[in-house]
């Protein structure tokens, strides 16, 4: 490792912190709109364990989205540090950021965001193409992943021909394309009914156990919160509470 590369990593205590897949240290984000400044984040710090199932909650305007984008490598902090797999994302150029987004993080969206003009298989193959895999290799791998989410038979269907739950499963398959360490899910059950939502939650749970991926979701879905290891509350640009579902006392009865 060159000195320059070494500087990219969280030098101090990096070995003992190796269990953390994401570290956010005093992250602040200021949006400037002409004269006025909006403080979206006012110093948020969080360590995310490898293989953890983390939920982020917060009212709209709390800075939840900003924080979420930050730890997913979609945005850079104004000050403070975000380490993804011990790499300071603020120091990456656009090519390295794209590389990171392609291989380290898988994204799952509330509105599924499958490319409508492509089949499910092509959707799952797309991130592999971006990662430089050749078609044959990618097709084989994509079919394997689709099988894992139970949609192998529908590989050649277009997204529009499928139900919301199925589309979200394809989107999850796509997020797994390059074997990421982290899956970042933005309200993944927000557009689904309770039953399909539950299927998605179970799928996430299974993937976490089978593949050891870290799952971070922004959600208000009580079932999802209940399934997570930790729940992070963001209010007014700060992390105000980190607790387990038990501490938060989420009862099943509240779901219905």
């Amino acid at each position, binding site marked *: 490792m060159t000195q320059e590369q070494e500087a990219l990593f969280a030098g101090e205590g990096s070995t003992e912190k190796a269990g953390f897949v994401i570290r956010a240290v005093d992250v602040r984000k200021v949006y400037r709109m002409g004269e006025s400044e909006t403080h979206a984040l006012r110093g948020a710090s969080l360590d995310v364990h490898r293989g953890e199932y983390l939920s982020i909650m917060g009212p709209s305007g709390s800075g939840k989205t900003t924080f*979420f984008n930050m730890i997913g490598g979609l945005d850079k902090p104004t000050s403070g540090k975000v380490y993804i797999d011990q790499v300071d994302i603020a120091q990456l150029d656009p090519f390295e950021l794209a*590389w990171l*987004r392609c291989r380290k993080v898988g994204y799952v969206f509330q509105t599924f965001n499958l490319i409508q003009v492509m089949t499910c298989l092509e959707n799952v193959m797309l991130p592999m193409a*971006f990662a430089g895999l050749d078609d044959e290799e990618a097709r084989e791998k994509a079919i394997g992943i689709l099988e894992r989410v139970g949609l192998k038979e529908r590989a050649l269907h277009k997204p529009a021909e499928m139900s919301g739950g199925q589309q979200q499963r394809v989107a999850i398959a796509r997020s797994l394309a390059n074997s990421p360490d982290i899956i970042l899910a933005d309200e993944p059950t927000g557009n689904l009914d309770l039953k399909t939502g539950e299927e998605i939650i179970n799928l996430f749970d299974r993937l976490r156990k089978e593949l050891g991926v870290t799952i971070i979701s922004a959600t208000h879905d009580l079932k999802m919160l209940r399934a997570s290891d930790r729940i992070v509350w963001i209010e007014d640009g700060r992390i105000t509470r980190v607790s387990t579902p038990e501490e938060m006392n989420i009862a099943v009865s509240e779901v219905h």
Partner: protein
Amino acid sequence: MEKIGKQVHLGFRRALRIAMQGIRIRFGRSLVTISGVVLGIAFLMSNLTGQIIQKAVASERDQRQTATLMLTMVQSEVGAIAGKPIAVIVNGKLSPVEEKLLLLLAPAKLQRDTAAGAALLLVLGDAREAPASLAALTAAMSQRVVLDAVRDRRYMPGAADVRREVFFGEELEQQEKELREKAIQQSFRTRWIIVVSLLVTVIGVSNALLMSVTERFREIGTMKCLGALSQFIRMLFLIESSVLGMAGSLIGTLIGGLLSFVVYGASYQFGLVMESMPFGLWIVSGLASVVAGTLLSVLAAIYPATFAARMVPASALRSTV
């Protein structure tokens, strides 16, 4: 722990495939984008075709007129030409007028190598010097009358004693010059109209593509989340635009060219148009229109493509476009 690498730009072929898929699926939107190019290029091509036909027909008419005048001169020397022996020397390259004259002279008995018994000798072609064999040829003639197409052609001594009339090569040049000047004046105006119409085309295509980009905000953001580089997104839109532009220009060129051909053909005569039409030039200007349309489409796509490429990946998350 892996080292962070640099994302590699995906090749042209992959972008082409994705762009083609997009065009096929969003066929309606593609047609809207294309229609601007079709109209603009059809207008360009119909103008070019019109100019070509007008010029060709005008010069064809002129040549025919001159050839007829030349024929009258021949007739004034020898009377009715049918069956008359007329000797012809081709001295240098034949002009189109002279070729037409030869056609008009077809009823006479044309002889190429000998002037024996001929009532008249025609010297055609553009060479400055008269042919050396002239003296020998004229010696056998009964009347020794020579008509020459070039006024100041130099004759060898010995051939000077022939009675020589000169065709009006100069008048012909004068007429051509006037025709050219008129064409330049005309084409200046049409050029201005063409430029404006092409500008409108570019703006139209640019606008349609911008709409297309805003419709695809989420898709573009998603691709960026999945690891697409800005260059790839830009390339995607440039390819889409150039493919659409090429298809549109092809259609526009065909429509404009053929329509204009039919209209002008009907207003003059099809026979005259067919005979005078420089088809090679027509095809070349058709190709030029296609190339121009494609280039303009790419030009129109630069801003929308850059706009798309600049989008931040986070816009995939919650945009509700």
